[in-house]
């Protein structure tokens, strides 16, 4: 693969609530290369969507990106430096760096024409009061300096490309006259119409049934080949990941726990959480009782567990997991896992957590 177009490094986003700060994204790093589909996987609440809106700088009050770097090609979307004037408590305060794009520059240079987003719910993502064609045209006109007539031609062409039959006639239809799968295609046409280099797809097929999902995934693969567009594919569905992603980032509670090429993630799984995720996918050769669900629910991001964040639910947890906060350790070419099993920090010497060993022995005959 070629040029790296997006780099995210140590991104942190917090939401300030009355009960304290919620660390929704807590030090996430990954990159996206040209023409590749990068998966961002995790349970609900893992911080996937907040990560993507942080990249686009669309986090709203009471949320705030507080640290980290996001650069798109040679431009800084998020960047901080220590302020010259120190805060009262002596710790240097982080302030946005000068080269960080202003909100206006983000709007005019990045959003839409460089990075576009496809949202989760095709039913809610189209404005019900305008025709489908008009909405695509609006976005194209805005981002590509085309005349209204050219933009109209282009919109019809995009509708045709994403597989809307009789695109010319459907151009003047309203969103409620489209089915869910068709609307999802329209959203993809909208994003593609602006000719971005990177499309962030936020669970775009979650609301669709499987056959339509299959068609959409096929369409996306074709479009990637054709336009050389990169994708960040946000999902909780490991099946979708296996089908289209080149590389995968598995998120848990605001952190990336494992990242690597898709084959390694599936066939050479290193992190217990990824393993647990894979173990909980229903397969035709298993009955429901064979499934191994992940114990418990994800704790709140307000007070994440000390040490490894996954240890309260991890079948392999040992005493050391409570104390040592894991970093991403290299476990193969381009393959990293945030589990202290892979580092020499005393995992193998420490005792299993109470009750954990017997449970795993009984749970897995």
């Amino acid at each position, binding site marked *: 693969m070629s040029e790296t177009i997006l780099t995210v490094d140590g991104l942190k986003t917090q939401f300030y609530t009355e009960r304290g700060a919620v660390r929704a994204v807590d030090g996430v790093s990954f990159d996206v290369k040209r023409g590749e589909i990068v998966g961002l996987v995790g349970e609900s609440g893992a911080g996937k969507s907040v990560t993507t809106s942080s990249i*686009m700088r*669309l986090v709203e*009050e009471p949320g705030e990106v507080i640290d980290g770097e996001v650069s798109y090609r040679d431009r800084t979307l998020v960047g901080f430096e220590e302020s010259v004037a120190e805060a009262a408590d002596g710790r240097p305060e982080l302030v946005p760096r000068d080269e960080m794009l202003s909100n206006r520059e*983000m*709007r*005019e240079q*990045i*959003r*839409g*024409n460089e990075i*576009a*987003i496809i*949202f*989760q*719910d095709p*039913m*809610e*993502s*189209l*404005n*019900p*009061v*305008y025709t489908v064609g008009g909405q695509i045209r*609006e*976005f194209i006109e*805005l*981002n590509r300096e085309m005349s209204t007539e050219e933009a109209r031609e282009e919109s019809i062409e995009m509708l045709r490309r994403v597989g809307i039959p009789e695109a010319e006639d459907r151009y003047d239809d*309203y969103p*409620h*006259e*489209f*089915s*869910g799968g*068709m609307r999802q295609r329209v*959203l993809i046409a*909208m994003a593609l119409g*602006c000719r971005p280099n990177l499309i962030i797809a936020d669970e775009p097929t979650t609301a669709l049934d499987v056959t339509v999902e299959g068609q959409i995934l096929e369409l996306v693969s074709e479009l990637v080949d054709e336009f050389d567009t990169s994708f960040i594919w946000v999902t909780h569905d490991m099946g979708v990941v296996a089908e289209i992603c080149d590389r995968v980032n598995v998120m848990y509670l605001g952190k990336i726990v494992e990242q690597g090429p898709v084959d390694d993630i599936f066939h050479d799984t290193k992190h217990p959480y990824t393993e647990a995720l894979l173990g909980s996918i229903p397969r035709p050769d298993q009955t429901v009782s064979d499934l191994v669900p992940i114990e418990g629910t994800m704790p709140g991001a307000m007070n994440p567990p000390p040490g490894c964040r996954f240890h309260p639910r991890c079948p392999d947890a040992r005493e050391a997991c409570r104390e040592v906060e894991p970093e991403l350790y290299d476990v193969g070419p381009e393959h990293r896992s945030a589990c202290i099993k892979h580092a020499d920090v005393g995992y193998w010497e420490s005792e299993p957590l109470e009750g954990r060993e017997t449970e795993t022995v009984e749970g897995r005959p």
Partner: protein
Amino acid sequence: MAIGEQQTREDTGAGEDEFEADVGWRYTLGKIKQDTTARFGLYVIAVVTVVAVVTTIDANLSRITFERYDDFALAESVWYHPERHPDPGETERRMPPVFVDGGTWQHPLGTDRAGRDYIARLVYGTRVSYFVGIVATTLGLVGGVIVGAVAGYYGGWVDDVLMRAVETLYAIPPLVLVIVFTVFVSGGNPDIIYAVFGVGIAFIPVFARLIRSRVLSVREMDYVEAARATGVRDRDIIRRHVIPNSFAPVLVLATLQIGVTILIVAGLSFLGYGAQPPTPDWGEMLRISHQYMHSDPWLSIWPGLAILVTIMGFNLFGDGLQDALDPRIK
């Protein structure tokens, strides 16, 4: 009715997983046509509109229409001016309606104390009430929608500042605003224009609060987020995406509000802060005629009826519009 609905559904040719009700002007008007009371309201509004527009386009129309009446009852009489026709004073020229003793077919609804034909006055009074209702309501609507949409969309301190300001305005009665306008802008010469501005501004809060509550939910919609993520400017998002999707209840309120405005401005005219004589206006006619309430009740009843029917028309239409726009009610 069932057939009508079926047809509408077929016309749209929608997909099988259609959740929303049908939308669009044609559909809304179609539903109103099925609703007898709303249809009646629509007819009243249509008649009032035609009368108001025609009398505005050709102010001398009454010369033709009322030619068979004597000179003094014609357009001249409508525009009877105290300077050209000195106050009749003791010379009472009141005349009762035709069905009361002493009435003639020349003046079917009688004349006022200056001998001006009451039908002509009522007809010409329509345009004052009508345009006052529309202009003042539009003023409140435009101001309120802008303030409310901006406040709701941005939230935070913008919302606080704008909404507190609007609530302060809400605490001031329209009459006081009108008096303030009259005194400070014209130096104390009351005129209908100040009444219109005062009432229009007094209605800004009503619209602002209504649309803000809708905007709060609309701004969370994915299509607004999608527009932001595609680099659409905030003001275009508000104009193109937020306001149109929050507008249905505002439209209903505006229709009802026109009736309220007509009533309030008639009240202001009655108090002397609205239309000034010799301009024919229903409220002003009431003001003059109320002194003859006992001897000539008809002089008060005719403009009162005109106000009643007009307001009822707007209210019935507004109710029908609400039913048609909100599928949950039926």
